[in-house]
């Protein structure tokens, strides 16, 4: 869709405008959720289960009540009025795992909240929590984790597209690859938090809350607490990252809200890092198996996939399903296939519940598929890049074997450009020379497509999709423009990009645009920010609302200037007559006239300079790109040094290339973490082993090379103004590039590795295999 003709100018959109949100962040002035402090505020701490699977015999809080500074202890019976939360996936055969806020009967994972203590400060609350005595009786591991889910598998789905079995029967080569994608933790540097405040006079509950989706969190709070949605307000003033980990309505939030209502005092809970690592937003765990059928000339004909995701004790929100469903649906990627079959599903276990994490599902499918393609090339004796050339989709539109329509992209161009940038041919020579010196160099190349901007026309991974997003544009008496967004920026720079769009629509400067988000009382209903949706939905809703207000402005000017509507133009904060520079009226004067001039109001009928517009994209957008990585593996230690990472990215029209590059760099860094460093470990007894940032390794500046970026630009047909959603593609495609590079360096020993991350000991053990 091309909305640019509606815009007065193209002066700011597409430019590297410095972010408007930065000064507050750079000076410590920006208030984040965990910075919110209210008068008379109390703090809450949890007593959490030390056992993965046990019956709750008793919770004795007598001792806690006499601890100095303790104001209340909340146990299961105190929260019995809170409705259980449940995933909202509607699929045939899906079994539910309702989650009671504080379960009184049994615990299902280490870290599950058992009771809460409210104190004058966190120190007092933790003292109180230490004084609560919990008696647990271990349960037999053979008992079902949830009633009605025998075998612990709560959902499975299998399907075939094309004649897969016959294709495999005819195949000259069949290549198989098994790879376990590890459990990781989203690890935003600001942990989760809530400050809940109940106004008894107005019967309104206000929650300052870590959430990527304030309006959905508002509805979830209201539902669980039995309040009308109208009486709940969610505010997220600023948030220190999320990456998918702040989408689920946590029992901790419901506890704090219930405590605030009961105590009639603000109650704050801030997750500490050990809580975040033990019982917070875990992500990604999946076992994957792929087999591929090839012709003798290296044509990939069909793939069979199998995914099983251990999604922890409860299926929450949509997080658990998106992991294994998106994985199954994104296996074809950019490869031409005659047939594809999948078998995918989720199981519950005695681990923390899985949350979405950037590149949900896609990371697993991309990694195992690209590793398989490399395996196949080695098995068939064809160069790995040549094998991709024989099988990649040509630039342009494409319909996958699953029936998904990709809008035009630079699939092959991006791939070839990445090979040029990495200088693939010379690398092969350098690699061969290094081998003779005993040095292990490798290159990995990962071409990707990212479906984003998912609205009602398409859910992710075959899940039912729907959305509802609006923006409101208003002009006040000063002539300044305020835009209220359906999304919530927590690092993505929406205050800047939305202002760039509005500035061009009205011919003002971005600084003259006030951008509001993260407050359900100040913004119209919207789904929030996840799944690389914000660019598409901001542009769509803002264009729609802006067009209505812009039309009103022009009609006011029509009356005041006594000029024809079509002769009017927006220039430098004014409306004037085209070709008559002396006849211009500033926006403030136009706004004043719309507010108060009787003849203008009479002419306009409805003089309101405010409009709210709904937007739902006709189809998803498809950005694409290719990541290439060069690594050197230490043959003694198995340590990996990343020499280069090159990214070629095409997300259509860019609103702000600097912000796009920021998303790419951050995504690549997270991908490197997944490939080489991060893993959440439970021991055989269900006890977490990586409960601090000393054991759970996040990428540091010294773990990463400079990330080299080049842009291509194939404008979207489905997104407003040519914009394609992006931000998860580079994150989900980077592990494949790094893993393929390491496997290239150590081939054929790579066949011995079936799990991620590629830790030095994993690699060293593989190198020691014959």
């Amino acid at each position, binding site marked *: 869709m091309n909305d640019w003709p509606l815009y007065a100018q193209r002066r700011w959109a597409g430019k590297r405008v410095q972010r408007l949100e930065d000064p507050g*962040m750079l000076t*410590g*002035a920006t208030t*984040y959720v*965990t910075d919110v402090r209210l008068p008379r505020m109390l703090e809450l701490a949890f007593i959490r289960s030390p056992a993965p699977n046990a019956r709750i015999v008793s919770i004795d809080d007598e001792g806690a009540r006499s601890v100095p500074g303790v104001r209340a202890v909340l146990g299961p019976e105190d929260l019995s009025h809170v409705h259980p939360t449940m995933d909202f996936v509607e699929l045939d055969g899906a079994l539910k795992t309702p989650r009671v806020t504080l379960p009184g009967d049994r615990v299902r994972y280490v870290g599950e909240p058992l009771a809460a203590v409210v104190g004058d400060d966190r120190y007092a609350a933790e003292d109180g929590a230490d004084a609560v005595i919990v008696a647990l009786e271990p349960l037999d591991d053979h008992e079902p984790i949830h009633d009605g889910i025998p075998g612990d598998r709560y959902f499975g789905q299998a399907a075939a597209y094309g004649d897969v079995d016959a294709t495999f029967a005819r195949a000259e080569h069949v290549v198989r690859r098994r790879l376990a994608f590890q459990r990781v933790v989203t690890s935003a540097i600001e942990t989760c938090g809530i400050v809940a405040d109940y106004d008894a006079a107005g019967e309104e509950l206000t929650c300052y809350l870590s959430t990527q989706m304030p309006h959905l969190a508002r509805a979830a709070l209201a539902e669980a607490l039995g309040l009308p949605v109208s009486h709940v307000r969610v505010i997220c003033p600023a948030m*220190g990252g999320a990456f998918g980990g702040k989408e689920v309505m946590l029992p901790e939030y419901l506890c704090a809200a219930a405590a605030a209502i009961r105590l009639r005092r603000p109650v704050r809970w801030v997750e500490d890092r050990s809580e975040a690592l033990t019982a917070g937003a875990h992500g990604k765990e999946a076992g994957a198996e792929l087999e591929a059928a090839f012709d003798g000339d290296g044509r990939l004909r069909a793939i069979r996939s199998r995914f099983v995701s251990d999604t922890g004790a409860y299926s929450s929100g949509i997080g658990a399903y998106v992991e294994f469903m998106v994985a199954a649906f994104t296996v074809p990627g950019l490869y031409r296939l005659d047939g594809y079959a999948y078998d995918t599903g989720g199981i519950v276990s005695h681990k923390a519940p899985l949350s979405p994490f950037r590149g949900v599902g896609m990371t697993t499918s991309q990694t195992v598929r690209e590793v398989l393609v490399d395996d196949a090339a080695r098995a068939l004796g064809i160069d790995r890049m040549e094998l991709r050339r024989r099988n990649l989709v040509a630039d342009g539109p494409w319909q996958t074997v699953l029936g998904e329509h990709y809008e035009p992209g630079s699939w092959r161009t991006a791939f070839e450009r990445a090979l040029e940038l990495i200088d693939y041919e010379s690398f092969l020579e350098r690699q061969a020379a290094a081998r003779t010196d005993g040095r292990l160099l490798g290159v990995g190349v990962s071409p990707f497509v990212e479906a984003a901007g998912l609205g009602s026309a398409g859910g992710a991974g075959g899940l039912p999709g729907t959305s509802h997003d609006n923006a409101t544009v208003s002009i006040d008496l000063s002539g300044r423009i305020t835009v209220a967004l359906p999304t919530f920026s927590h690092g993505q720079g929406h205050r800047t990009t939305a202002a760039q769009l509005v500035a061009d629509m009205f011919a003002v400067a971005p600084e003259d645009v006030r951008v509001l988000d993260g407050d359900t009382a100040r913004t119209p209903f919207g789904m929030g920010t996840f799944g690389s949706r914000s660019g598409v939905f901001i542009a769509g809703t803002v264009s729609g609302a802006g067009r209505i207000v812009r039309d009103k402005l022009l009609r006011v000017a029509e009356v005041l200037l006594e000029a024809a509507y079509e002769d009017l133009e927006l220039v430098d904060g004014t409306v004037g007559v085209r070709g008559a520079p002396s006849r211009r009226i500033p926006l403030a004067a136009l706004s004043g006239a719309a507010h108060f001039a009787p003849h203008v109001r009479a002419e306009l009928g409805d003089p309101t300079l405010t409009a709210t517009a709904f937007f739902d994209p006709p189809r998803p957008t498809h950005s694409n790109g290719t990541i290439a990585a060069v690594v050197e593996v230490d043959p003694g230690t198995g340590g990996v040094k990343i020499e280069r990472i090159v990214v070629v990215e095409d997300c259509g029209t860019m609103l702000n290339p600097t912000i796009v590059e920021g998303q790419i760099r*951050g995504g690549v860094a997270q991908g490197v973490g997944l490939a080489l460093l991060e893993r959440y470990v439970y021991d055989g007894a269900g006890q977490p082993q990586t409960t*601090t940032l*000393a054991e759970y390794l996040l990428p*540091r500046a010294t773990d990463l090379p400079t990330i080299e970026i080049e842009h291509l630009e194939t404008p979207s047909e489905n997104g407003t103004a040519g914009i394609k959603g992006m931000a998860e593609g580079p994150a989900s495609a980077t592990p494949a590039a790094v893993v393929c590079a390491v496997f290239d360096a150590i081939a054929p020993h790579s066949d011995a590795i079936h799990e991620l991350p590629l830790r030095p000991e994993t690699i060293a053990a593989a190198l020691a295999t014959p």
Partner: protein
Amino acid sequence: MTRVSIEVNGTVEELDVPPRLLLADLLRDRLGLTGTKIGCAMGACGACTVLLDGAPVRACLMFSVQANGRSVRTIENLANEAGELHPLQRALREHHGLQCGYCTPGILMAIAPLLESGQPLEPDAVREAIAGNLCRCTGYDTIVDAVVEASRP
């Protein structure tokens, strides 16, 4: 309670504090200086970095009483009195060296003393210098670029 006297951003604060009160909590909860962030409370992420007598320390690894008689400088005091950003703050903005901004105060306070030596910094040295500060958004490149540029005369 223990009486402490700590110079914070140029003002001497006299406070009665419990001996176990962390410096980070004193700054954030008692003095309202929430620019200092807490990311892990065990010294692994660097978000709470402040200057103690001019040298970077983790405010989550210190008790307030340990700062008695000493001077603390926080992010709120990095821009000058006229509100002009420190060259490092400006460089970070110009290079898009922050996204969610939560780790940013800690990175600024960790690096600021290094710049005051006046020596130009090479990229690898900057990577080493910020290796104690975790950022989950940027991938560090743009932070490194910003610091390198800010270190050049």
